[in-house]
């Protein structure tokens, strides 16, 4: 049996080069946009609650609106992907812990209601107490909303997503924190956004570290994250995140303008990350190499399975 791992392009057999897996039918931009909005909304709800507790009214208003708006827009993106609104309701007929989409629907639905109520109370000034209660509820559901979307992708047979199932939740959580902090840096006055800057910076560090781990740990399976269009998107996102972090650390406190620029760059980086990861999955499903070669290697490691016949 030949060891084929060290040659640049691994040799493998396939059926006329056709994919083994079906490419995900989820639409672009609906689904990557939904992944981004979920992260933005979830982490904004956390930011809003912190702002309320520490008496930062402008930050609170921006974050509450981002949470409610992100959840509403995310729901629209999801429904657009499904085609018809009543199809979303079918998600709520059963609760299945084995289906991240089911679990996610039971996070998204109450989160949308609670963050919407909190934002409405904030904007109208009506029922402030209830608004705060709703806001706390949204803040509790926020982190799960920001991270469950990683399970959505990873709980599939798509090699680039599935094999990264330990790292993706951290990439998504960090990316969401970065987006929420970034948006607040863009829209809220500088004397109230210190926590937003810290959240964005910390989120960026988590995201970059987790994404780096995927590339380091997963070899061939992680190739779609490095090559082609998804690879370019991911590199662009990483540069955005790095630049934004640099500006934030150096001048985020001092310049309203630079803080806003860094914030917008954070948001752009987070959005681009989701498109890159989404498209890397599509590429990973399309090429039988990513299905066959790692499975062959696994069989070879186990020493069993059906060995190649060419002796």
């Amino acid at each position, binding site marked *: 049996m030949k060891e084929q791992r060290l040659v640049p392009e691994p040799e493998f057999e396939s059926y006329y080069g056709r994919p083994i897996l079906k490419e995900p039918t989820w639409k672009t931009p609906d689904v990557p946009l939904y992944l981004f909005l979920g992260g933005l909304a979830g982490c904004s709800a956390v930011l809003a609650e912190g702002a309320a507790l520490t008496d930062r009214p402008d930050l609170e208003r921006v974050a509450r609106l981002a949470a409610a708006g992100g959840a509403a827009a995310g729901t629209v993106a999801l429904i657009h992907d499904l085609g018809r609104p009543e199809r979303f309701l079918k998600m709520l007929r059963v609760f299945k812990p084995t289906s*991240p989409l089911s679990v996610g629907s039971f996070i998204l639905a109450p989160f949308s209601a609670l963050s919407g109520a909190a934002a409405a109370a904030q904007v109208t000034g009506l029922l402030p107490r209830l608004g705060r209660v709703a806001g706390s509820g949204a803040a509790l559901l926020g982190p799960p909303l920001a991270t469950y979307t990683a399970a959505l992708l990873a709980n599939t047979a798509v090699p680039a997503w599935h094999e990264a199932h330990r790292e993706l939740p951290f990439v*998504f959580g960090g990316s969401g924190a970065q987006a929420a902090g970034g948006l607040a840096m863009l829209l809220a006055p500088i004397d109230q956004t210190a926590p937003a800057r810290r959240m964005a910076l910390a989120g960026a560090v988590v995201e970059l570290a987790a994404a780096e781990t995927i590339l380091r740990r997963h070899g061939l399976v992680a190739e779609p994250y490095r090559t082609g269009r998804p690879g370019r998107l991911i590199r662009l996102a990483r540069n955005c995140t790095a630049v934004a972090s640099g500006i934030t650390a150096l001048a985020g406190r001092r310049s309203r303008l630079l803080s806003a620029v860094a914030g917008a760059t954070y948001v752009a980086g987070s959005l681009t990350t989701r498109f890159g990861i989404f498209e890397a999955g599509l590429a990973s499903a399309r090429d039988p190499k990513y299905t066959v070669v790692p499975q062959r290697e696994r069989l070879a490691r186990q020493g069993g399975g059906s060995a190649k016949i060419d002796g």
Partner: protein
Amino acid sequence: MGSLWGRLDDVQTDAGYGSPDEHPPRMGFFTDTSVCIGCKACEVACKEWNEVPDDGYLLTGMSYDNTQELGASTWRHVAFVEKPLDVPVEAPPADLGMPSMGPPDPQGAESGGEGGVRWLMSSDVCKHCTHAACLDVCPTGSLFRTEYGTVVVQPDICNGCGYCVPACPYGVIDLREGDGRAFKCTLCYDRLKEGQTPACAQACPTESIQYGELSELRERADRRLTELHDQGVDVARLYGRDPDDGVGGDGAFFLLLDEPEVYGLPPDPIVTTRDLGSLWRHVGAAAATVAGLGVASFASRRLVPRLLGTALGGRR
């Protein structure tokens, strides 16, 4: 919720159909590709019986295969592989029990002659996995386990979310264009309930597709494998028969004459839900990290790096 991974001797009981004597035996397919002649009677019979719509006609250049793949409107797919015989096969084509009609190839078909072509034909189908990823991830409950242990979609419940599509490790199920909902082989659920044989198995002229109780099919397949090995056909192997494999064994399994990937099958599929526990744990840890970051961002500037250190250090 049934079990997610590993050996499972009674899928129906696991799915809530009561004790073994309260439900029918698990039914399945054994597709013996060594006797397949590539006539596509199974494809046609399936389309006709299940009223599966046409899904376009395309000349692919892939030997006699213009069907291409399983999908929402193709529930049996006959694969055609032409392998040049550059090396004399170690298996002189023993009598495989094939009818004498050879494939219409001028080179002399599956005879081991110099410059000849070795034909592989195989009728692929949904594997009706013991641990079916499509069923696990379906958020609506549209995909369900029948009393026969098969996996079936209910179109009236399916909302077209498409989650089942990338979840299937074999690339079987798909959304139907125009309709938007998911469809795949039902193992002729309606015919089973009437005590009939599924249409493809009924139509197969060479008994390449055999239908029956899974336990019996497995014994039959083992005997067939021994027979072929005794005849010197060392390349023969069973695929999806092992109840200890990554999907707990297939309800529809195969006898192949080459590596699975040559037929477009994954060599070592594993149901994605095997890692579900780890996945949710990591989602939980990441959510806690995000919450921690939030708290720390407001609490103190020095707390953030400290929390980060724990989160990253504690992560595997």
